[in-house]
């Protein structure tokens, strides 16, 4: 008993430095912003003198632009993650076989990922330029009318989506590919002998075996997608109108333009809640089958 206690103590001692670091860099800012969200704390008047209770939250909820941003964000995240996952999985499956020039593909794939979103945004802004952009030029060659990529409110949303997919899909591909590569060969051979087709192998073996990797990839991408704002900043600034005004850019503006740290913190907490809900929901879906026998 005492030995076990001593062991436990040693464990705590080992964990302590990282706990302290984590506390300092995660818990403290989180706690600070939580408390800020209940006060009239702004950059102009940074003090905790006026307690507002839930007023900052109420203000956020009563702002129609907040609801617009929330809707835009959810639409953006769900679409971006599902498109990236679907395409990414297909590409990963295609790369996970004996093909030539694998190294070349990997290099090409990694490139967008290592670029900063701002640079990507600027490059795409030029490609998407309605008059001088390459994209419309090529469309023109095959007789398609120039598309107003970023100037049209509906199209702008899809354009931003496309650019984000372009940049972020490699992350998905590489993560899924890493998962595929490390899968054992034998279950596939066993299934082959049993007469399973490629599709049956995909659904009965690959996907179930990949579940942990898929979960990680999708959750990480979801969280990242919620934080997308640099791309929006460079490409559209949330416009035209409010068609691409995602919540993190909304919060960024509340903080650094509105200087209203308190309301921004409150909105951030709402966003955090949404992200958490979504992530928990995904865990539930993806791990549901395992739960049957527990």
């Amino acid at each position, binding site marked *: 008993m005492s030995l076990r206690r001593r062991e436990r103590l040693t464990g705590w001692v080992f964990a302590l430095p990282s706990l302290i670091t984590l506390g300092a860099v995660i818990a403290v800012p989180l706690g600070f912003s939580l408390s800020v969200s209940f006060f009239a704390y702004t950059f102009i008047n940074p003090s905790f003198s006026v307690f507002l209770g839930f007023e900052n939250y109420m203000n956020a909820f009563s702002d129609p632009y907040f609801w617009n941003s929330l809707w835009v964000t959810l639409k953006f995240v769900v679409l971006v993650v599902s498109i990236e996952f679907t395409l990414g999985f297909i590409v990963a499956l295609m790369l996970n076989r004996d093909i030539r020039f694998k190294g070349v593909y990997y290099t090409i794939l990694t490139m967008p990922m290592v670029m900063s979103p701002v640079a990507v945004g600027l490059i795409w*802004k030029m490609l998407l330029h309605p008059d001088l952009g390459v994209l419309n030029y090529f469309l023109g060659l095959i007789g398609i009318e120039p598309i107003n*990529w970023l100037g*049209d409110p509906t199209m702008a949303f899809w354009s931003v989506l496309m650019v984000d997919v372009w940049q972020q899909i490699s992350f998905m591909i590489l993560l899924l590919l890493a998962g595929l590569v490390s899968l054992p060969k034998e279950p596939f051979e066993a299934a082959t002998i049993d007469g399973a087709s490629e599709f049956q192998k995909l659904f009965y073996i690959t996907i179930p075996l990949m579940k942990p990797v898929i979960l990680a990839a999708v959750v990480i991408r979801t969280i990242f997608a919620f934080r997308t704002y640099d791309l929006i900043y460079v490409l559209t*600034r949330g*416009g*035209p109108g*409010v068609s691409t005004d995602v919540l993190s850019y909304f919060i960024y503006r509340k903080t650094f*333009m*509105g*200087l209203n740290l308190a309301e921004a913190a409150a909105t951030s907490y709402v966003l955090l809640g949404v992200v958490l809900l979504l992530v928990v929901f995904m865990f539930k879906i993806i791990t549901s089958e395992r739960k049957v026998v527990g």
Partner: protein
Amino acid sequence: MRYLVLAILILSTALYAGVTLHVLMEDVPETHIIKELLPDFEKKTGIKVEFEIVQYCDMHAKLVPQLMSPNCQYDLLEVDNYWAGEFPAAGWLEPLEKYVERDKFDISVYLPSMLKMVGYYNGRLYMIPMYNYAMGLIYRTDLMNDPDLRAKWKELYGYDMRIPTSVEEYVKLAEFMQKYASEKYGQKIYGSAMQAQRGDPIVMEWSNYLFSLGGDYYDEKWRARVNDEAGVKSAELYIRALKNAAPPGALSFNLDDAFRVMSQGKAFSMITYNWMLAQLNDPSKSKVAGKVGLAPMPGGIGLNGGWGWAIPKNSQHKEEAWEFIKWVESFEIAKKRALMGGAPTRFDIFTDEDVVKKYPWYPKVMWLVMYAKPVPEFQYSTQMIEVVGRELSLAATGKKSVKKALDDAAKELNKLAKMAGLQK
């Protein structure tokens, strides 16, 4: 006496020696011009200057936390006129009167409009004007002088084509050019290379329309008036221009995108910063070099913009920072900057013989700057721009009527003025 001066010089050099001034600077031509001149300052004073050069969009977010902290990492600031209300109101800037009086620094040489915008706030001097970016009309002289187009215009409107004198006439001319210049040259030539991206681009451009039609953001009692007759008319004309005389996609354009269209010879005109003329006249950057001219905003009042030097209250090296301001704003250096392509703020530079010889249009720019008007300066300027930008963009995309959008903007502007304690 000579020895005394020398002694003081040596002493002051010794005093400042080892000090390094850290300054956050925007990545624009003016910054690089000053950077080139820095060795002169270092030689004279022994003070080292280090520029951290970043994009505009990163500056505010970098500055605010530093200004709020007990020790500012930046010893000297350049302050955009957007922040010229916010920073002093928050108490982040050192008042400069005592330095000016003590060292007999002459501020009478600055254009009043500049001093008003990036000098004084609430009657106190917080900043020294650094450079201007007042806006005006840049147009294609070749198209303007094209006899066919001129004849067509006369046939349609019964008078000679001229540099527009009102916003309405400008929009009409832009529409005309888009139709007939395109026809004549067999390629698309847009009337106006507009920058209607949500946020500050659309607000900056529209402000020219608003001011020139006699409108404003607030009246003298800080009641919002963007939705009055002038406001609505300016927004309607602006949106008309966007629809009929602007490149597709202008709703997502910022300055760079618009510049690309203009510099490729694909537009007739551009409402933009006066210093863009030099860029458009630079053959290495522009296909229309030598074919562009500058005029005041049709209607007379463009948007003024500019930067000022300031010292943060929590600066570690206030004296050295002031020393730098004195140097960089001295006639000698100010003239050098102007000759290297800078955008002056002083009468004596605008009208200097050598400067005018090199840039003959500078006296015109001076008048443009004198008449130009900045956006209202108060704590919530950036927020105001954000709100107006959003509503204008919504109106331009047809998601809201012009009147409704401006009414909504006015509502929020009133709220901001109240929050700032300006409106009782």
